[in-house]
């Protein structure tokens, strides 16, 4: 099979599993997980330094070969998202930004419209914008027009491990979007990640399910293999479901 690379903006990725740095019991588990999974891009958040305690720098745990995708978590509107994005860029980790504007604190659902407004501003400023949104085709088209580099629809609320609850709306995005569709949030099991790839998703972002597993490195590898498996099956063209059975052995009686 010839090479199958994912292109986003001017970047290319061999591994279609993106990961996150949230909720690891120890930062030391992050490089192990990255090593085991082969993930080429990982998210980070930005916060005030705690001047009281000597906190280690998370960047020390992420190999230079792995791209950083800072998010705008904590933003409650487009203005805050834009401000965080600019600060993140100033931190010298490149132009990538995952826009995350959350107003609902129980289900942590993104505000699609504020996300669109932030995308318009930041794309104009040269950011490579990854908007995290509710799966919504009309909005996704507006995001494309606003210059988003990809669309990141949620499969289920963050951290719920409930998988592709929004499956049918994501299928519509995959069918109609010109930019890559990356399923983000809610994916709790490798089988769900594989299913997303079989549907034709371009990539999957998994944080909680990996970082909060008993063995994050093993789980990271499991997700990575599942994502490759799903992608491979998508490319190898699976057969449709059939209502009635189709024999795999000769249908004749033994001695007929």
């Amino acid at each position: 099979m010839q090479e199958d690379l994912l292109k986003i903006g001017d970047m290319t990725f061999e591994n279609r599993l993106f990961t996150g740095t949230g909720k690891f019991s120890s930062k030391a588990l992050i490089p192990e997980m990255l090593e085991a999974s082969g993930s080429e891009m990982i998210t980070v958040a930005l916060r005030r330094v705690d001047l009281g305690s000597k906190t280690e720098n998370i960047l020390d745990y992420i190999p230079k070969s792995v791209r950083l995708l800072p998010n705008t978590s904590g933003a409650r509107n487009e203005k805050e998202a834009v401000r965080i994005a600019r600060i993140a860029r100033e931190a010298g980790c490149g132009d990538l930004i995952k826009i995350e504007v959350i107003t609902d604190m129980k289900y942590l659902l993104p505000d699609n419209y504020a996300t669109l407004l932030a995308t318009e501003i930041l794309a104009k400023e040269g950011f490579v914008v990854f908007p995290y949104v509710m799966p919504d085709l009309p909005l996704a088209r507006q995001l494309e027009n606003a210059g988003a580099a990809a669309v990141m629809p949620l499969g289920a609320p963050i951290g719920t491990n409930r998988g592709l609850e929004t499956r049918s709306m994501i299928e519509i995005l995959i069918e109609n979007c010109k930019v890559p569709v990356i399923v983000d949030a809610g994916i709790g099991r490798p089988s769900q990640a594989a299913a997303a790839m079989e549907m034709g998703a371009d990539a999957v972002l998994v944080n909680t399910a990996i970082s909060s597993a008993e063995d994050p490195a093993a789980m990271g590898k499991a997700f990575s293999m599942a994502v490759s498996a799903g992608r491979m099956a998508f490319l190898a063209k699976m057969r449709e479901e059939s209502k009635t059975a189709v024999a795999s052995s000769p249908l004749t009686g033994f001695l007929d």
Partner: protein
Amino acid sequence: MKITVNGNPETIDVCSITDYLVEKGLTGEGVVVEHNYKIVKRAEWQGVQLREGDNLEILSFVGGG
């Protein structure tokens, strides 16, 4: 003199942003500084002297999804 750092009042001697960060051990990669609500590029830290009443925001990356 008194300044505000990350929302908290602090009393320091006159110094540059760099001096302040060095003292706090915050010169590592990924540290960003807003001085009076404007981002100050790393290259310019040395040149900025802190004054009475200044506001500093010192930020860095943490784990997030």
